[in-house]
């Protein structure tokens, strides 16, 4: 794999993560720059994801680059049976960077093996979505002023939620304390608890989304509990409201607490939380633009100034 590609958040060192966050900060302060002049970026969305595609394309456009690509595989020769390898090789003739999303897991890793053009993974099935993790990290960094020694509570679908798994992998450098709040059906897989143990990360598991857990958290990361995940619908009906956040539950929370959610949400955050200053999920999505601008420049080998985060210029 060429080292300027990004397939998984685990491909990044602690130093690289810190540098990318400082560069994201730079883009937040200067979002429009002509530094991608003459560069062409392909956005290959074999699976539609309007939210992620628009964020990447805006990131390129605001930096003065051009975008080609497709938003749905049915409009390409993939639907005529062309292999992924052939599509990637064809596109590689035209562009400086490939941003791709695919419904098959491992598709981006494979793409990096068949081209010399850098590839950014914008989601491969249930596997990896590193730009989401970078925006999560940037949101945590911005709202807390640091990444070290935070207490982070993950709530909802911890079994299938790739965002929470990637967040654990990324936070392993920063001595976090995790709380895993989930029902038995959706609890954190052994594999990720093993990652925590190997990295000396403290964690506790909870079935109840309790006041005690909420009041001692710096970050609460909510995820969607999807009906499809349950073999037994009765079970779903029983648990679906146990992991819903209501505004009243935040009465005793820390001042610095922020609520994150990768969006779209269904009913896991009641709309009455939206006006609480601790609700951060809408700004979180906006941070994706700056995080992606930093990732794009990393892959293109463009050197970007780093902007230190001072507490006074937070939020």
């Amino acid at each position: 794999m060429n080292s300027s590609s990004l397939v998984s958040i685990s491909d990044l060192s602690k130093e690289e993560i810190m540098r990318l966050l400082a560069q994201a900060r730079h883009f937040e302060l200067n979002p429009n720059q002509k530094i991608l002049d003459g560069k062409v970026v392909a956005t290959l969305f074999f699976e539609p994801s309007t939210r992620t595609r628009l964020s990447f394309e805006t990131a390129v456009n605001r930096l003065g680059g051009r975008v080609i690509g497709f938003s749905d595989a049915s409009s390409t020769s993939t639907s005529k049976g062309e292999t992924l390898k052939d599509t990637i090789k064809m596109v590689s003739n035209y562009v400086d960077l490939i941003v791709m999303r695919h419904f098959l897991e491992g598709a981006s890793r494979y793409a990096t093996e068949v081209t010399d053009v850098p590839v950014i993974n914008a989601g491969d099935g249930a596997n990896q979505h590193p730009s989401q993790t970078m925006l999560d990290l940037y949101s945590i960094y911005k709202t807390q002023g640091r990444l070290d020694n935070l207490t982070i509570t993950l709530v909802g679908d911890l079994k299938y939620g790739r965002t929470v798994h990637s967040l654990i992998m990324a936070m392993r450098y920063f001595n976090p304390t995790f709380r895993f709040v989930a029902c038995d059906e959706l609890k954190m897989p052994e594999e990720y608890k093993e990652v925590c143990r190997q990295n000396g990360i403290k964690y506790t598991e909870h079935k109840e989304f309790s006041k005690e857990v909420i009041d001692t958290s710096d970050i609460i990361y909510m995820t969607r509990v999807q009906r499809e995940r349950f073999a037994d619908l009765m079970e779903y009906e029983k648990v679906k409201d146990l992991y819903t956040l209501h505004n009243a539950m935040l009465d005793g929370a820390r001042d610095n607490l922020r609520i994150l959610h990768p969006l779209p949400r269904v009913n896991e955050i009641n709309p009455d939380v939206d006006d609480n200053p601790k609700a951060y999920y809408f700004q979180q999505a906006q941070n994706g633009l700056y995080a992606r601008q930093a990732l794009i420049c990393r892959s293109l080998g463009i050197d970007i100034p780093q902007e230190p985060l001072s507490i006074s210029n937070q939020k």
Partner: protein
Amino acid sequence: MSKQELAVAALRNGTVIDHIPPQALFQCVKILGIELLDKQLTIGNNLHSSKHGAKGIIKVADTFFPEAVLDRISIIAPDAVVNTIRDYEVVEKRRVELPDTVVGIVKCDNPKCITNHEPMRTKFAVIDRNAGLLRCHYCNHTVSSLKATLL
């Protein structure tokens, strides 16, 4: 010398593969490609093993197997021991060795893995040698080598 050992030693030239898990025996036979071989062949299963309780064993006369074939055996029978016999003597006795990366041998059991949809070779990292756990280089799924489907 006990009668059991005598049966093994009776081979003049050939290969004895010992300590095969009983459930992997017939797949090993398939991997070795010895079903249609016209050489003297002895296959035993559920024999007593001091190490593992029960084991399978394959003895083939006048046949020696290339490394690539033994690599495949190591996936489903990681404890297997290969004895090379020449002129009634065991001239070499060694355990098969599970390589660090397993390329093009095991199928990924994740139906959504790219390797099951593209004409490409699979690739796994061996993450736990004792438990026989492999991790797909592409989709990150963990596959148990003992239950793996071989390509």
